Structure formats: C-alpha cells, structure tokens
C-alpha cells in the first residue's frame, strides 16, 4: 500500500537532505497508488500537481521530518478535494423537495431510492417514492416491494411513459403535502442520447431540485466519463457511492467529486435498508490512499 511504498522510498533518503527530485520520486509513488485505487489518470495527475507545489516549498525542504510532512500534505489535499466535511442534505418540512436518482445500469439506484426514503422518513419527513423505470423487467415491482417491506410510501401506477409518471407522482406529492419525492429512474448510458434527454425531461417536468448520481464504488476509469457527461447534461447536485462494503479502494469517488464538483452525500454499505451512511471524506481518504 501507499504507506509501505513511501516508507521504502524514504528509506533510500537515509538521513540526507530532502531535495525536489526526491519529492518527485515520492509523488510518482503516490500517483501509482491512486491509479491502482481506480482514480482517473487525469484526476490523479492534477492532484499530484497540486501536492507538488505544496510539497516543494521552502518549509518542507528544510523540515526535519519531510516524510511525515509529505504524507500529511497528500492526505490533507485529498480530504480538501473530496469536500472537507461531511455534507448533510437538509430538505425543509412543508415544502416539496424532489430527488431524481440517476446513474449507469446496476449501480444501485433502486436500492438507494429506498434507503434515502428510509433515511428521510426516520428524520420525520413525509416521503413518497416512485419508479419511472418502465424498461427493466420488474423494476417498478422491485421498488414497490422494497417500500412495502420497510414501511415506506410508493406511488402506485401502471404507466408506460416515464415523464408522464413523474408528472403524476409530482402532482400527487404536492397535493398530499409530501416533503420529499424520490424518483427512481432507469439505468442509462451517458452516451445514450435519447435516455439522457429523457432524464432531462423528467427533471423539467417534476421540477427536480436534486439530481443524485449513483455510482458503483467498484467502477474504474470510466466513472470519470460518466460523471462528466451526467453533470454536463443534468447538473448533478450530489452523488452516492454504493457497494463500499466490498474491498474496492473506491478511487471513483475522487474522480466523481473532482469532475462533477458536487458533494459525495452517502456511502452504500450493503443491501439492507439501513446500510447507508453519511459520506465521510477522511474515511475515504484512508481507503483510497491506504
């Protein structure tokens, strides 16, 4: 892992004075660690560039503990890029907030629509969910069952047009005093023009306040492309990283955060309704940097 790599590089220094070229070598190791953790190579390069400026300043080169100082700089810069503190979503009671859940196929949208509903309902909000996934076999049924099993409200419909369903659910939510409406959309590719246009049409019709990008934390380099395209077309306001109960390093988190510039809101840590925690940037730093 990174600590071991850096320890080995540092051992080569053997008490000699720290030089800019040594810092270069250390940063090369950091870059490799980031790439192995699935951080996108452009995001890794720009991260290293920022760290380099901080790590080759006069203070560092004169320091008696340069190794520790560089590690600290890397760590701090990392947490800074991730969004220093945990961000809490704060919908308001009495006013409808609409969440539109989007992302690639199989990323965990339906599961996290239910988890979000549970999260907000437990906090005292009146929550309604709706699935507009008319494509995937039994997708609407999946959300319905998740809601029924967990005491959550789901908007029942037999519609076949996502935008129309979204409109009906929005009207119902407004009319019946819901604080939150969560729209579960179908998995879609960022290069599928028609589907991306559909997501935009849903946003317009349902007046979505929050566009939440759900990303599989095991995703590789492609997470950067996904984040960029979804953000450009839909303006992501937050993301959820799923399946963090696996041993994935989760570098996609850094890529998504850096590219979408939207906060990482939650971490999915299992299949159960309660398996979702507020995202902690420092914990993610530990995980990615090892």
């Amino acid at each position, binding site marked *: 892992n990174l600590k071991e790599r850096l320890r080995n590089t540092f051992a080569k220094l053997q008490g000699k004075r720290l030089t800019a070229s040594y810092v270069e070598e250390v940063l090369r190791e950091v870059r490799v660690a980031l790439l192995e953790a*699935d951080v996108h190579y452009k995001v890794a390069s720009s991260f290293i560039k920022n760290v380099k400026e901080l790590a080759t300043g006069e203070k560092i080169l004169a320091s008696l503990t340069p190794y520790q100082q560089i590690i600290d700089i890397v760590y701090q810069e990392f947490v800074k890029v991730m969004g220093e503190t945990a961000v809490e979503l704060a919908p308001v009671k009495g006013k409808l907030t609409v969440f539109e859940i989007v992302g690639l196929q199989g990323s965990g949208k339906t599961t996290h629509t239910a988890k979000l509903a549970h999260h907000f309902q437990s906090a005292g909000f009146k929550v309604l969910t709706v699935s507009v996934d008319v494509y995937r076999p*039994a997708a609407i049924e999946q959300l319905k069952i998740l809601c029924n099993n967990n005491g959550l409200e789901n908007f029942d419909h037999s519609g076949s047009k996502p935008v129309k369903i979204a409109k009906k659910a929005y009207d119902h939510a407004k009319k019946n005093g819901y604080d939150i409406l969560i729209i579960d959309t179908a998995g879609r590719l960022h290069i599928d023009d028609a589907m991306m246009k559909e997501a935009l049409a849903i946003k317009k019709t349902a007046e979505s306040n929050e566009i939440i990008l759900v990303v599989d934390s*095991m995703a590789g380099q492609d997470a950067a492309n996904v984040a960029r395209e979804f953000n450009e077309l839909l303006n992501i306001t937050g993301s959820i990283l799923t399946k963090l109960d696996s041993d994935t390093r989760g570098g996609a988190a850094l890529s998504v955060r850096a590219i979408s510039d939207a906060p990482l809101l939650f971490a999915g840590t299992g299949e159960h309704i309660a398996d979702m925690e507020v995202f902690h940037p420092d914990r993610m730093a530990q995980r990615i940097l090892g």
Partner: protein
Amino acid sequence: KGVFKGDKKGILEKIEMTLLEADMGPQTVVDIMEELKNNAEGLRDYDLLSKQLASQISRILQGSERELSPEKGSIILVMGVNGVGKTTTVAKLAHYLISERKMKVSLAAGDTYRAAAVEQLAQWANKLDIKLYSQQAGADPGSVIFDAVRSFQQRGDSDILIVDTGGRIHTNENLINQFTKIQRVIEKAAGKAADERILIIDGTTGQNALNQIDIFKKNSEPTGLIITKMDGTAKGGILVQSFRKFSIPVLFMGTGERFEDLAPFKITAYLEKIF
C-alpha cells in the same frame, strides 16, 4: 491520429494514456509500454505503433477466446457480485443456446433474496417462452436449486438448465459460504458439479475485478467469464490482467440490455474497442 507523426514521445504518451484509461492497471501499462519501446525502436507513426501494440496485447490474450457449446443435459451456474448483469445474461445465454445451438433451455431462479429477483427472471422466461423453476421469495436458494436440478433431470424436456444466483460481494464470507453450499447442492442433486460455472464481470469495473475473480476462482473454478456493459465507454481492460493472472477464458461480451445483446468474445473486436 496521423497528426502525431514525428513526435514519438507524444505518441507514446498518448498510447500510455489510452491503456490507463482502458483499466489495464498502472503496472500492466508499464510492462506493456516497456515491451513496446523495445520492439518498436524504429517506429514513429501512431498507426504503426498501435498495430504493434495490438499484436502485443493479442499475444497476452492468446487462448482467451472460448466458445460455449454445452452437451445436452448440462447445468450452467452463473455467479458474480451485485448488479453486474447476471440475470440479464442468463436470459441472453438462453436465447443464444436456443437460436445458435438449437437447444431447449430451462431456467432456475436461484436468487430468492433480492426484491423482485424472481419476477425479473420470470418475465425473461416469459419473453423467451421457456420454463422457469422457481419458488416464493425468501425460500432457501439451496432447496430451490435442488428441486430445479432434480426436476430438470427427471422431466428430460429441456437440454440445458441455467441457474441464476443472487449478487454477492466476494468479501462477504456468509454469501461465499452460501455459494459453496449451492454448488454442493447441485452436485448432490445432479450427481455431478455444474458443467459450466460462469463468472460475470461488469465491464465498467476497475482493479477490484481482479479481487472478485481471485475469490470466485478459489471458490468455484469458473469455466469462463462474461464481461458485460461493453456497449458503454468502458473498455474492460482488466481482462488483460485477468487472463495473464488467472487464465480463465472469456465466453462473451454483453453489449446491451436486450436478450440478443450477447457477442462471442473475439480478441480483435475487443482490441478495436480499446483503440
């Protein structure tokens, strides 16, 4: 592409970035670039360099293509982590065997845990007009699969049984133990291990795919891989590291959400996607 003619350092950097972005992994990229520089001393043209590169990678992948041609009476077990495309691929495999191999196929709904998992597979069975062995949600997956295998063998009205299973994170000991039990159940019911054990890998997965393959390999010695979602922008570069490390052949690429969207894995088509 030709605009890079003459600037070799620039061309090599561009190639390195392409390989990294394809999820080949930094160490593998270093190895490949090292060999490229040695074998392509005189080359300065991007197209010639990438041809050289393609042949290098194709050499690593030599033997990775494998055709699915099961004997009548075969049991195919499908496995993988959550959301990778197992259930959809089960439907695709059924369609492939029916239309390309002229076989009769039945399915077993081995995911009794996830909401609407059985309903999802039932709808696919309906579309394909084939039999689905299933029980109610919450039933023990082992007993559902036991009954399915027994009925499949006793009825003899189908050539192939494809068993769908629930997604399982490879580091979840309980779920991996459950999968061991499922394999034992199949052996007990069929008098043999599953003839094909297929591991499904999501094409958008990064380096973690190697951890997944490692654990599933130790647990069940997969007979083949299927890499899904190759219709996106992900390049599935982890297949190169995977084959080098584990030698598990690749059967198909998933290329969409319809049951026809399954393409036999071909090295040339795979490389074309990367370049």
